[in-house]
């Protein structure tokens, strides 16, 4: 019915599409297809596979080596959305600027970012890491202990973030949070931020770091931040972890307090 020539005329459009969004196709391949393949083949979950690899290839007690092994695995074998080396550097810089004593991390997944933060903390600081999924939390616990951080420095809380935040003051005795790192489900960013504001744990100068605000993106969160006027906000533009062409950003919010 429709002649072949007209269909052929659509070829440039298809080619353009494929070339312009090639990184997204590659990401899809690595994050979804390869994962399904390995899930079927080995029967372990992705995080367990990552832990196996780290266990066999990294030096225990050395956070640096653990992070490097993780990076290697994520860039060559499979894809896990840790914070990655580039954005990790930005986070290290922010940490060294602010030297927070009380840090809350929402969503530790495999424990990569926990290790990264804990590595840069000063003596006497304490990191509270919240992870919703029990299996991931188990892996994260193992990774953190492998890196050599004890219970004094890092405490892993296994529970959804919206349940934990109201209890932080009462059960864990926190008065003020110097830094909050958000890397869990993007749709929870805004609710958790509002919960933190309501709980009074953010003081003037508290820093909130939110990862992946551009891809996959947290538009409600950004809208809330812009409108509320409580924060001085900045978006650090970088690329998505372990990927070259997909643009992503990390939002750094400094709480100003109600005027």
């Amino acid at each position, binding site marked *: 019915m429709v002649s072949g020539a007209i269909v052929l*005329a*659509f070829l440039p459009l298809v*080619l*353009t599409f494929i070339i312009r969004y090639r990184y997204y196709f590659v990401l899809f391949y690595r994050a979804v297809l390869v994962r399904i393949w390995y899930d079927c083949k080995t029967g372990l979950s992705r995080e367990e596979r990552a832990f196996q690899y780290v266990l066999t290839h990294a030096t225990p007690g050395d956070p640096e080596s653990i992070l490097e092994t993780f990076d290697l695995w994520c860039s060559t074998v499979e894809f896990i959305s840790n914070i990655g080396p580039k954005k990790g550097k930005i986070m290290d810089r922010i940490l060294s600027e602010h030297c927070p004593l009380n840090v809350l991390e929402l969503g530790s997944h495999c424990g990569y970012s926990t290790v990264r933060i804990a590595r840069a903390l000063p003596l006497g600081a304490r990191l509270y890491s919240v992870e919703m999924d029990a299996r991931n939390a188990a892996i994260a616990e193992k990774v953190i202990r492998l890196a050599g951080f004890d219970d004094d420095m890092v405490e892993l809380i296994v529970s959804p973030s919206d349940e934990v935040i109201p209890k932080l003051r009462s059960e864990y005795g926190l008065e003020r949070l110097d830094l909050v790192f958000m890397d869990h489900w993007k749709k929870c960013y805004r609710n958790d931020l509002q919960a933190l504001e309501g709980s009074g744990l953010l003081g003037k100068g508290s820093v909130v770091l939110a990862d992946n605000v551009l891809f996959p993106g947290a538009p409600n969160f950004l809208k809330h931040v812009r409108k509320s006027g409580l924060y001085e906000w900045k978006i650090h533009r970088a690329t998505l972890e372990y990927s070259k062409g997909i643009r992503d950003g990390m939002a750094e919010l400094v709480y100003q307090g109600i005027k």
Partner: protein
Amino acid sequence: ERGRGKRERKRGRKRGRGKRERKRGRKRGRGKRERKRGRKRGRGKRERKRGKCCRLPSPSPCCFSSEQESPDEQEENELEKLKEAVDDRKKLISTLRGKPLPMTRKLQTLRESQEFVEKYEGAIGKGKGRKLYAYKVMMLKKWMKFQRDFENFKTACIPWEMKIKEIESHFGSSVASYFLFLRWMYGINMILFGLTFGLVMVPEALMGMPYGSMPRKTVPRAEEANAMDFAVLWDFGGYAQYSVLFYGYYNSQRTIGWLKFRMPLSYFLVGVGTVAYSYMVVIRTMARNANEDGGGDNNCFNFSWKMFTSWDYLIGNPETADNKFASITTSFKEAILEEQESRKDDNIHLTRFLRVLANFLVLCCLAGSGYLIYFVVRRSQKFALEGLESHTWWERNEVNMVMSLLGMFCPMLFDVISTLENYHPRIALQWQLGRIFALFLGNLYTFIIALMDEINLKREEEEMVKLNMTIWEAGLYNETVGVNSTTPPIAIHPADIPRGPCWETMVGQEFVRLIVSDTMTTYIMLLIGDFLRAVLVRFLNYCWCWDLEAGFPSYSEFDVSGNVLGLIFNQGMIWMGAFYAPCLPALNVLRLHVSMYLQCWAVMCCNVPQERVFKASGSNNFYMAMLLVILFLSTLPAIYTIVSIPPSFDCGPFSGKSRMFDVIQETLESDFPAWFGKVFSYASNPGLVLPFLLLMVLAIYYLQSTSKSYKQANLELKKKLQTVSHDNHVSAIILCAIPALT
């Protein structure tokens, strides 16, 4: 006269100043307060509070202390001083705009000066001439007011001015430049429309033979059944084909109507006139733009230029301002990087290889698209031979669809390939424009070559039809009239008479169909690619896993260069086809009108400002140059067909002539006196034309070399200015340093 007594002195002191007078208004002598008040920039407390800013103190009529002058002389002096004061005020009013004062102060000065001038101007004219002077002044003021109102009216009459200003404030000057270009094109097309409509279509419609009176003006019997169908009309067949819209309808009668309007001559001259007018307008605009260019020196003071001249003061929208801010920052970063990189060139071989590869890919794409069009045109010729009714709509309109689709999709592919090359955005834009230009040109010329094949086919058919017609006529006569009698010929309905093929109408129809399909494709792509996309992004974003606005589809940006090129090429097609289809300028005016509104709406509703905002003002002359090239290239085929192919024998205003330009010869012979024809034949003698051409070439060479020498002189002066300012700077530094050293 001699001495003045006390009383006289008291009485006659016209100009003497008493205490009260001094207090009232001293012009010359200055007391303490006067000095405080009348200092040029200094102001008293009350004045500062009041905000007065006029520097000229108000002269009072009595401001002279000399008692010895006669009353007349005193009056004269006084008038002169008053006149001076009024002139000063007038000068102040005229130069007020350039003074570095805040706006409120300027407005106040203006008001006070105007009041002063009004109050004392009438008093200046002396004696009898006073009334005339006042009258002159009043008339001058009324004239100036009228001029100002007329200017305002003219500005208000410019169409779409507010729309374009709004777009400019949202999107920056490069997007607005597209709309300015569109408006300019609209103006040109209006003039072309006026010419073709008024001098070709209307005379034939009003004064020519009506529809149905001649074979060429009537729908053939075979096609009559579906001549009114929408599908046929949309393809410009049926009744649309046999109307003033196309070449074939026109009669070759030398004069028509009671005005003795020379239709064929008018047709020919309008065709030539549209081309000539277009050339004139394009070259005049190019010359004007070349003057405005100013020859900015791009090599020196790069960062100073960027720092002080990057901002676009016409922006009125916060998002655009943010984007502009970000883009200026990026351009600074780039400039710094470029400075650093120009010292070291690493991996230039890889860059060169990638660029060669990119060009190779682009050439492949161009070749592929050219071959596809050629293939499709051949197929359509095959279809035409088999008879068009046996094919579906898709197959019949294959050529147009393929050309429009390729024209829409290949530029996107070029854009993506150009990321391999790693050029600066401005250079990348020029390469992109060049490639799109090559694409459109290739497509157009492939189309024309295919059209030439069809023309040749039709001309062969013509020979056969001529033969058949004589046989048919002879047959007709022998049937009805058996004898060689002088009875009048039988009335046969014009719809039944066999007629010759009309290649000119066919050419006109092809162009009209191409333009219609191009327009439709553009609008549909606009609606789908911009509007539908924006709707999806906006409303699906609530329930989608990633941020659609920041990530994959996001809102589209307005593609200035692609749209400008599309506009230029459409105009080229109009120029090509206007001779064979007088309806084309009218169609184009309609198209541009609708485009303006549709694109303005689409831009404001569906597009976001570009992230990399760089000024396209330098490209203004580039677009004009391309327009000129297209004008030249598109008039070539039309001129070739006019000069070398004989017109159809059965249709159009030139039927029966051996060449179309014979109409000029005919007019010279019959309408002008004999001596004119002789003069013309002398003037067109090659012996006269060749030296004239030589003279013109030499004049061009001379003008070119003088302009080059002026440019040189300009550059020298600029360099001198730089060294002088540098010397001043250095000496200033030295002068400042000396006290520090001692």
